[in-house]
């Protein structure tokens, strides 16, 4: 399976990068841009073939390493490789 872990700063945590991107887009003339948040995405190829177990593994990886749950939240998507 392929697992995609998306890690974003939690709501309410300052996102300096998102803020700067928003300002830059406005500077380029893109109108109607509201909040911008920047995060990370980690794509993993897993030998696991069962979607439920693949998801559980990816979530464990996110909690252990990929996300810093003090300030970040994550979501996991699982797809066939």
């Amino acid at each position, binding site marked *: 399976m392929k697992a995609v872990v998306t890690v974003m700063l939690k709501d309410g945590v300052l996102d*300096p*990068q998102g803020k*700067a*991107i928003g300002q*830059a887009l406005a*500077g*380029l003339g893109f109108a109607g841009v509201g909040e911008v948040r*920047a995060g990370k995405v980690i794509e993993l190829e897993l030998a696991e073939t069962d979607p439920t177990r693949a998801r559980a593994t990816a979530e464990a990886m996110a909690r252990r390493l990929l996300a810093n749950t003090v300030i970040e939240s994550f979501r996991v998507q699982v797809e066939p490789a």
Partner: protein
Amino acid sequence: MKPGIVLFPGINRERDMAIALERAFGHAPRIVWHTETDLGELDLLVLPGGFSYGDYLRCGAMAAQTPVMGAVRAHAERGGYVLGVCNGFQILTEAGLLPGALLRNAGLRFISADCHLRVERTDTAFTAQWQQGAVFRAPMAHGDGNYFADTATLDRLEGENLVAFRYVTARGEVTPEANRNGSARSIAGIFSPNLRVLGLMPHPEDLVDKLLGGEDGAPLFASLAAA
């Protein structure tokens, strides 16, 4: 030659650069703000190091889109001189004035240390005061200095003799250990085809004073002042 320093929010090595330029040119460079579009009669535009826009998103990405960069591009197209150091080099690649891109250092850590650079050609306005093949020391201070370009581009750069500097050992040898950020073909700096635009990662401007460890970087500025 009249030098100017282009300043973006978050740039922080402009003072170092101004000191190095003033030493060589005998007068202070003009400071050009990122919103300006009239460069007047400047002959040399220097994009110094730092963290323009915090290096958020990608190093140099946001600075490359500012109004002043239109003027910098026009200046380069007219055959004007442009020097980009560190973040300045990143901005020049992001703006498409030089090919390739600067990726995260191979070791994924910021590197602040002296490196040795080999001068690959001396028939340019930037390097005339060095001997062919000369090796000089320069501090590097970057997290994203890993030069990347696709194979065709690298072959073209080498074929057209546009590599300005390579990371080497103190004896001038290209080795993997001397290439700490993992740059493709040990490339530390490149020229534009007309040899008027130079981008490089290390900081010759921080080694122009014996008291601070040497004058290894001074020939770059002396070359420009004499050009």
